[in-house]
């Protein structure tokens, strides 16, 4: 047998894992910690101080968040390029979800770029890291608020529907009935995350 080029296989599997761990887990954690905003600016700001004061915080962020998202996003764009969406011709729910998985991935990528710049990179440059007031002020701009809502909905759908693919990629949901149960579960995850994320956002406006 000729030697086979298995890079694609391992990259795709890595893309699949990074979508759930760490990125998916981080998304849920991020919605959770931002929910501290419900207790008001002081509590929220003290939590920000706590996270910013963690040892090796920048290294943790780079290794567990920035690199995985960058990899998943960039390789995600390559995966999108290799596909040919056909949802207008073959109008099945799964086919639409395949298209939406790609659309929400692109939206999430654009949003994350903006969000990381506005709340983290700019802070690294000016030395003035994010606070309740800073987020509140920027959300007074309706365009930014709309972008946040779109970003949260997109990321929530993308993770929920991504889990459906993840369960197949890892050979967990095999039969038709099992996949049907999984698809209901994944819709619930998407809906739950959307509500959870928008609730966290609402404490700032």
């Amino acid at each position, binding site marked *: 047998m000729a030697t*086979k080029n298995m890079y694609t296989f391992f990259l795709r599997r890595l893309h699949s894992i990074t979508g759930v761990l760490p990125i998916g887990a981080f998304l849920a954690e991020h919605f959770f910690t931002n929910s501290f905003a419900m207790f008001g600016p002081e509590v929220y700001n003290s939590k920000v101080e706590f996270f910013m004061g963690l040892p090796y915080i920048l290294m943790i962020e780079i290794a567990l968040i920035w690199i995985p998202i960058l990899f998943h996003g960039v390789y995600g764009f390559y995966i999108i390029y*290799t596909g040919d969406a*056909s949802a207008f011709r073959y109008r099945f729910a799964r086919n639409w979800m395949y298209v939406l998985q790609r659309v929400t991935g692109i939206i999430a990528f654009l949003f994350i770029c903006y969000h990381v710049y506005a709340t983290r990179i700019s802070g690294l440059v000016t030395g003035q890291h994010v606070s309740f007031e800073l987020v509140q002020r920027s959300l007074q701009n309706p365009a930014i608020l709309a972008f946040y809502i779109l970003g949260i909905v997109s990321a929530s759908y993308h993770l929920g529907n991504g889990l459906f693919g993840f369960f197949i990629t890892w*050979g967990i949901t095999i039969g038709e009935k099992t996949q049907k149960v999984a698809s209901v579960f994944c819709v619930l995850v998407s809906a739950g995350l959307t509500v959870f994320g928008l609730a966290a956002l609402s404490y700032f406006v």
Partner: protein
Amino acid sequence: MGDKNIRLKIKRQENAASEPYWEEFVVPYTPGHNIISVLMEIQRNPVNSKGDKTTPVVWECNCLEEICGACTMLINGQVRQACSALVDTIGTDITLEPMSKFPTVRDLHVDRQAMFEALKKVTAWIPIDGTYDMGEGPRMAPKDQEEGYRLAKCMTCGCCMEACPQFNSHSTFLGPSPIAQVRLFNLHPTGAMHRRDRLETLMGEGGIAQCGNAQNCVRMCPKEVPITKTLAELNKDVNRYGILGLLKK
């Protein structure tokens, strides 16, 4: 139905290198037509709807009972077999196009060689030829036979390939049906001797990881081959062999 004519709009192409064009035909309605018999009417009297004499439309067909897959084409935009597409069910306004994912040979006739190349790549057979008689093969559990039979119904028609968003000219993906066939031959006790080779091929370029879970394949398969279930099962096999296998190195 009341309509006296069947109107056809056919995407035609002189040869592999030429540009496609549309030509319309009108065939008198009689009950019981399928797409093949309508095409035969055009063949008998190759005159287009403007009344101009033209070349007969070329297509492929063979079994006429949805068993061979040769007459697969796009009928009103959906991929299916022409023989089982009945005018009385689909209506008298009909658009025919060749499949878009395979090179056109002429008119509705395409070259599906890519599927056969993919089947060769995944060793979709059981190599038993040798220099001596290897004796009887092992018995196979009836449950495995049943599962194998459902996969063996694949007629390589190309419906799943045509509907798959991941199988196209800018992707190396081998396509749903050739990959699903791996399970048929790995399931067989003698075929299983080459199980590792097949799984390694599925880990290679164009392999199973390039599936995008759009699941059009299983929806468009005329033979009800459980493609998505089989691919999920193969995902498990490939992960176990390829990833857990790394620990054995």
